[in-house]
């Protein structure tokens, strides 16, 4: 029995969004009488944190505090259309729609402030703390509650905005496959270190170290959450998960968490990452996307690391202990170990 160590790398791209039939999302923004800004959507938060990052993007563009922005989603009677949360598209598409809506609402807000402060809207700016002030003389200002009240009850003006973003449809050329299927590309490189038990065929992932480039990070803690959670799911795919353990045979289909094998906290490897930011031209504040790709790169990195450890190239996943034991029968490294012993 021996424990063989190996290292593997994988470098990947991941496209943001889709375009099959066009890929649109919309946003509507309005201010209440007291200066709370409601962003109405029909978008879904799967847990990645969409409701949080969209509020950040909205607050940034409006120039108002994060706390003054509410996200109202998802209701088809009140929220305008969104294609949905998939294809690493939500922050990119919905974020762009919110920026467009917020710019229109901001313009209306500054116009009302200009009347109240008796200056041109071009002379005004927001401090992000709830005030609109005259550039160069920050003491001349109005808070957004007073401003919204004035808009409603004095001027009869709405402070609102409409936003829409679409990646237009690009039909695929059936002869050549020419197409424009996405908006931008995020990138990652993952290095996996593994240990293989030659007696049991079990693999321990010691570490997954990665560099990601995702355009702008709207919320670094949430990006980190995707990287760690994705690394774990990628490891799970690489080593454990299948609904057809003897594919293509349909037998032994799991029906519970005791039969469908997903690793638990004991299998958590050391995960470390750095994030680079090269903003994309078409994303909101340069956002690309990070939701899906984090589970992709760890799979080949781990499989390459196991191949490196045992000296036999593996070409499928999941690489279960059974498959590894069969591969070990062909391993020059194991042969060498046996010869050394005898």
């Amino acid at each position, binding site marked *: 029995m021996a424990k063989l160590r190996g290292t593997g790398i994988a470098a990947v791209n991941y496209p943001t969004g889709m375009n099959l039939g066009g890929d649109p999302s919309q946003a509507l923004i309005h201010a209440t009488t007291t200066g709370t800004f409601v962003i109405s959507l029909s978008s879904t938060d799967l847990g990645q*944190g969409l409701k949080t990052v969209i509020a950040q993007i909205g607050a940034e563009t409006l120039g108002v505090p994060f706390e003054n922005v509410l996200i109202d989603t998802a209701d088809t009677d009140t929220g305008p259309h969104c294609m949905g949360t998939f294809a690493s598209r939500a922050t990119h598409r919905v974020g762009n729609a919110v920026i467009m809506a917020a710019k229109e609402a901001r313009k209306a807000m500054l116009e009302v402030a200009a009347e109240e402060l008796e200056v041109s809207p071009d002379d005004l700016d927001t401090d992000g703390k709830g005030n609109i002030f005259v550039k160069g003389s920050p003491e001349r200002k109005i808070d957004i509650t007073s401003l919204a009240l004035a808009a409603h009850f004095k001027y009869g003006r709405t402070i609102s905005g409409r936003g829409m973003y679409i990646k237009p449809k690009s039909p695929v050329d059936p002869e050549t496959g020419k197409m424009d299927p996405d908006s931008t590309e995020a990138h990652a490189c993952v290095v996996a270190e593994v240990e293989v038990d030659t007696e049991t065929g079990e693999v321990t992932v010691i570490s997954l170290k990665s560099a990601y480039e995702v355009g702008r990070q709207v919320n670094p803690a949430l990006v980190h*959450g995707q990287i760690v959670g994705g690394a774990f799911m990628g490891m799970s795919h690489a080593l454990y998960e299948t609904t057809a353990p003897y594919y293509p045979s349909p037998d032994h289909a799991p029906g519970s968490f005791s039969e469908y094998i997903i690793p638990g906290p004991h299998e*958590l490897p050391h995960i470390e990452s750095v994030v680079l930011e090269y903003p994309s031209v078409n994303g909101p504040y340069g956002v690309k996307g990070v939701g899906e790709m984090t589970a992709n790169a760890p799979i080949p990195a781990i499989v390459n690391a196991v191949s490196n450890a045992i000296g036999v190239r593996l070409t499928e996943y999941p690489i279960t202990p059974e498959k590894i034991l069969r591969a070990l029968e062909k391993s020059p490294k194991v042969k060498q170990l046996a010869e050394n012993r005898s």
Partner: protein
Amino acid sequence: MPSRIVAFNLNGRDVEVMVKPLTTLQTVLREHLHLTATKSGCRQGGCGTCTVLVNGEPMLSCLLPVEDIAGQKVVTLEGITPIEGLHPIQQAFFDNYAIQCGYCSPGVIMVIKALLDRNPNPTRQEIMDAIAGNVCRCTGYEPILRAAEDAARRLQSA
């Protein structure tokens, strides 16, 4: 078989429910008493989302006939949530981003509550052992482990 009345203590309050034999504690909590913090991810005892404390021990409420806990003390996530603010364990989960979709969170928090009640300063290994029965498909467990360690520190310094 006819229904019968089962009495137990729930979150510090005595309750009585009328149930058919073999009705699970999960069904009583969610459907009879409308306490939905206790989740229902599998009803096979496989995911841990329905974990509650029975006499301080974490139990899977989906496998537990309510007759079996007659007269005993049951605590659900509602029972540890203050009227204002958060329990230190909840605060640690919130601050450490140990939540994504949030569906596993109630079960995980109850397991950590039971662990810290009997072992205020657990090792990482002991935390992993405690939550090994809880499926989290989003976070990769790492933030959950950090949150549990953070919660232990907060409770000890409180």
